[in-house]
């Protein structure tokens, strides 16, 4: 495989189809992309108490994400320093220590090695094996933003906030609706026989698929807006390492009115007014856009939508975060969380959870049809002919590579936004992908 030619095609918006099912590409992604990127692992609300932990992966590397006894979040490589056993084999729980079942080496929940059986007899004490200052390998880089815990396998990763750049503006709509922040529930986890990139690209900006892929949820009246083609009135934005889609709100609404329209109760709207900057509020009030799906490169996606949750037509919004966790070039584990403002009224939380379950996640009516498409693409991408086909991902560009329309002038958020359909966002995601897989190891 000629990597230079693959990335040149990708940068030109013509995607060699085999990149969606190619073991050589997957190796490059593992070594050059996932070994260097900030990757989301967990949210602080999943481990609220000292000793709480969850176990999460970056590809094949397992990490314990724990809150230690002093309340500090720690991310530790889940491999015993002695013989390499997985120190914690549960997915979640509460523990002051992790004890390796092989030889009983024991680590405090901040990673420090505290127990080593027969230290004197077996090793001759500190002289043979200096036990002090030994600890499970910490994640090379770890940082937290809005409670979202990210790690990077690159010890020289830039500060997370610098990496997020202008996307942090949009992240707040999902993860900082009040000073209380969000709480995450889940994740649901399931495996799909699809390449991980397809979902990430889709959430970044594929408003074009909604009218047809998701025609069924419109057919059944799950949404108040009767036509999925309403999506073409939305704006697509690219900001920092992220990109996302929005819906156009009805004309004339003020800030509170627009949030009421998507189903937020007044108490939450007041909190949002205090939590968000004037520029963030202006995106909703003056530009008239509400965030929907988005992807933060490489593999964290977010979604916000507002279906009808009962027969009387009550509209309730929900937020979901999801991780496209690569298993191989042809398989992805999806981790899908329901997220809700921690300060929201209980009734809202209940209804928002219901809205989430109906629309997204392992049983969600949107997600079901998405995955069918993505599995099919992955299957098709495996063969010889797929190596001869370049998929056209140039929507919104002229033959000279210029945008066919001007950026949307009334879009008040940072970055660049275009109203209507286009593959600007997917190309933005893919250009970051190309930069990573093209970089020397």
């Amino acid at each position: 495989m000629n990597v230079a030619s693959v990335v040149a095609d990708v940068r030109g918006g013509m995607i060699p189809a085999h990149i969606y099912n190619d073991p050589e590409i997957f190796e490059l992604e593992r070594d050059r992309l996932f070994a260097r990127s900030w990757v989301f692992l967990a949210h602080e609300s999943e481990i609220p108490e000292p000793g709480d932990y969850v176990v999460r992966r970056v590809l094949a590397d397992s990490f314990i994400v724990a809150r230690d006894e002093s309340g500090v979040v720690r991310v530790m490589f889940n491999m015993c320093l002695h013989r390499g056993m997985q120190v914690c084999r549960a997915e979640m729980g509460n523990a002051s220590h992790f004890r390796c079942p092989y030889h009983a080496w024991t680590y405090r929940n901040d990673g420090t090695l505290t127990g080593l059986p027969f230290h004197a007899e077996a090793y001759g004490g500190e002289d043979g094996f200096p036990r002090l200052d030994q600890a499970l390998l910490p994640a090379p880089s770890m940082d937290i933003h809005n409670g979202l815990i990210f790690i990077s396998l690159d010890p020289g990763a830039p500060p997370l906030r610098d990496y997020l750049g202008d996307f942090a503006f949009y992240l707040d709509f999902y993860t900082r609706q009040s000073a209380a922040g969000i709480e995450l529930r889940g994740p649901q986890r399931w495996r799909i026989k699809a390449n991980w990139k397809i979902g990430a690209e889709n959430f970044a900006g594929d408003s074009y698929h909604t009218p047809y892929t998701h025609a069924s949820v419109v057919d059944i009246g799950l949404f108040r807006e009767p036509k999925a083609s309403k999506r073409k009135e939305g704006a697509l934005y690219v900001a920092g390492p992220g990109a996302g889609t929005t819906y156009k709100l009805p004309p004339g609404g003020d800030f509170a009115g627009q949030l009421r329209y998507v189903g937020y109760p007044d108490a939450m709207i007041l909190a949002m007014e205090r939590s968000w900057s004037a520029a963030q509020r202006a995106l909703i009030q003056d530009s008239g856009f509400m965030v929907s799906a988005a992807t933060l490169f490489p593999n964290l996606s977010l979604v916000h939508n507002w279906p009808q949750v009962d027969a009387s037509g009550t509209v309730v919004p929900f937020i979901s975060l999801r991780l496209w966790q690569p298993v191989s070039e042809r398989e992805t584990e999806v981790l899908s969380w329901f997220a809700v403002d921690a300060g929201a009224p209980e009734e809202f939380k209940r209804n928002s959870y219901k809205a989430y379950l109906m629309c997204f996640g392992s049983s969600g009516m949107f997600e079901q049809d998405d995955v069918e498409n993505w599995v099919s693409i992955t299957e098709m991408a495996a063969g010889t002919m797929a190596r001869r086909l370049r998929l056209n991902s140039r929507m919104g560009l002229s033959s000279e590579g210029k945008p066919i329309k001007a950026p949307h002038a009334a879009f008040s958020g940072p970055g660049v936004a275009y109203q209507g359909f286009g593959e600007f966002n997917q190309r933005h995601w893919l250009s970051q992908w190309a930069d990573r897989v093209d970089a020397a190891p």
Partner: protein
Amino acid sequence: MTARKPLPYTDPAHQAAHQFLVEEAALLDAADYAGWLDLLCEDIRYVMPVRVTTARGAGFDTMPGMSHFDEDMYALRKRVQRLATDHAWTEDPPSRTRHFITNIRTFPNGGAEFLVESALLLFRSRGDTREADLVSAGRTDLLRETGAGLRLARREIHVDESVLRTQNLAVFL
């Protein structure tokens, strides 16, 4: 948990419950979802918790506050309506499914209600190139005797994997 004794297999109530579950499985495998909805009580609660791997003694093995399904009649009707549209791609072409139901135990629950436990193995095959999926689960059902026969008032599906190996739950369990 207190030791409970199931009804003898010769008990007509057990036999009726057994037959209900087998007939229900036949409707699901025939994708007769409208017929399936008719077997549900209006106050149905249909729940499938997310299972998690926890240490023995942790005291829980389901994810707090999160399920794969947590449905009322409105949500189930919407799902069935969707599958009946011309645009539910994930089941068009349809999966070939087989709901294997076994290990059925029936417990009286007072009045006209019975708690029925069963084991379910769902075989799901899509297309002609993909490997088939298996979903194994235990179910606890609340069956209610109504004037029209037994109806399902509550189902809790205790799936046996923490990470599902099927592309979605566009099927009922």
